[in-house]
């Protein structure tokens, strides 16, 4: 048995979600290799080589892989992956875009968003927005898997590097073309890797009021998130969204402010270690899963919270 983990990166650094995918691959068993494909991503390959438990890193360097377009990367991954018994990525938007294309090229099923490895061919994954956990068994010769990063700890990073094998494989294509990217700039930690998250919902009333959250976030070195209601109302951009259709998070502390607690939102944050809810409606469903609930007007509570930190 051997597993290939596809590294997620921005050409400069390896994303921590890759480390969680390595942990899942190690749980399946057998050798674990990491594939780094990109343009000038040498530092990423070096970081990947230091991940504990990794046997080797395969580095494919070509400008056509710069933007990780599925039309180029999928044939590359299926070509390299066909000799492995498992191919894994974190279930990020990059992984979700890429891996089903790989699975179809390999003519096998994909197992999406696993949260648990029961054996080398039995896995658990949430269905119905997390309202149930399905246990599934794969009889495919190659298990193609996306991994919910928050469900697996990050593999440790050591000091003795695994070998890096440079491979030249070019899958040029003219089907799709990269036009541009707009990435939100923030001094705060990323939502999916933050230790503390403070999120606002419809109760924030408008986008300007998110400053109240940001001030608390700055004191706690927290990321700022939002419910779908707040995003749909236009208070904040959609990459703030925590929930089944947004980002799945599991920080040490999640503070939900003015969020009622729709199933959709809970599916994205209920695995947080400690949940705090601040809401003026004491019947709000969010209180049913909160470790600490404060029934209060958020416009009074947030400045007070900021002052006491």
């Amino acid at each position, binding site marked *: 048995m051997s597993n290939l983990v596809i590294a997620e990166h921005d050409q400069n650094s390896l994303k921590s979600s890759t480390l969680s995918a390595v942990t899942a691959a190690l749980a399946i068993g057998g050798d674990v290799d990491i594939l780094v494909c990109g343009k000038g991503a040498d530092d990423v390959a070096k970081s990947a080589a230091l991940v504990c438990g990794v046997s080797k890193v395969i580095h494919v360097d070509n400008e056509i892989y710069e933007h990780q377009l599925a039309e180029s990367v999928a044939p590359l991954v299926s070509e390299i992956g066909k000799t492995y018994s498992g191919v894994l990525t974190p279930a990020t938007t990059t992984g979700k875009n890429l891996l089903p294309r790989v699975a179809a090229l390999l003519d096998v099923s994909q197992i999406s968003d696993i949260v648990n490895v029961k054996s080398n061919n039995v896995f658990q994954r949430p269905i119905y927005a997390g309202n149930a956990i399905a246990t599934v068994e794969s*009889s495919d010769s190659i298990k193609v898997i996306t991994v919910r990063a928050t469900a697996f700890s990050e593999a440790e990073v050591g000091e003795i590097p695994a070998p890096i094998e440079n491979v030249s494989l070019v899958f040029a294509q003219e089907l799709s073309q990269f036009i541009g990217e707009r990435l939100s700039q923030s001094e705060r930690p990323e939502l999916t890797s933050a230790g503390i998250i403070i999120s606002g919902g419809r109760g924030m009333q408008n986008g300007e009021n998110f400053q109240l959250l940001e001030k608390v976030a700055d004191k706690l070195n927290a990321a700022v998130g939002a419910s779908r209601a707040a995003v*749909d109302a236009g208070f904040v951009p959609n990459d703030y969204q925590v929930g089944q259709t947004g980002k799945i998070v599991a920080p040490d502390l999640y503070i939900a402010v003015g969020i009622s607690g729709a199933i959709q939102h809970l599916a994205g944050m209920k695995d947080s270690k400690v949940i705090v809810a601040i809401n003026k409606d004491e019947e709000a469903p969010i209180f049913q*899963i909160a470790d600490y609930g404060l029934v209060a007007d958020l416009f009074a509570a947030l400045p007070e919270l900021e002052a006491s930190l």
Partner: protein
Amino acid sequence: MKILVGIKRVVDANVKVRAKSDGSGMDLTNAKMAMNPFCEIAVEQAIRIKESESDVEIISVSVGPKICQEQIRTALALGADRGILVETDNEVSPLPVAKILREIVLKEQIDLVILGKLSIDTDNNQVGQMLAALLDYPQGTFACKTELQDGKIEVSREIDGGEQTLLLNLPAIVTTDLRLNEPRYASLPNIMKAKKKPIEIVTPEELNVDISSGLQMINVSPPEERLAGVKVESVAELVDKLRNEAKVI
């Protein structure tokens, strides 16, 4: 141009469903069923293209039991021109669904396929990407904006850090994210008119597609329940608990 939209019949998004106590599946007894919300967005996007371009035909396709005709009728009432039901009483997993759609895309000479990014029951998020692979077409997944250009389509996609824009050659596969559009409701006259629109029925066997899957569901179980904690009386008490009891700040 010919647009194919995929439609899946799923439990209504507002219904809270639970696993059956014997673990054999979800308890959907008497649950209200509806078109998957992401498929509604796909239908809406196809209709908007039809409204802005000349000579567009929209074909709505569903894979499932006979009753899925209800959701195809909904699409027809919204503005699709005709329907195809690939009828089977078996559960069909994403790869065989993609293989079925491939046959229809080739037979109908489809220029643009618009699918939901995932269905809210199985949460797989696979079919669009798999179909693109099988046809060797480009893919624009998780779309929040599309714009047709001469023989191409520009797709803005929701990605983790923000938004990415791609230009795809047609024919292409697009999968919808939530913010692509706000689906309309069908009007009563259009619902009546939809009853006369044709729905063709075929089977996976007639399309020569093997619907077996390498993935078997062993059981479903309820998620671990999280219990409600305590109510605190003040911000000061909250901060004290977070510092000294939970030790997270």
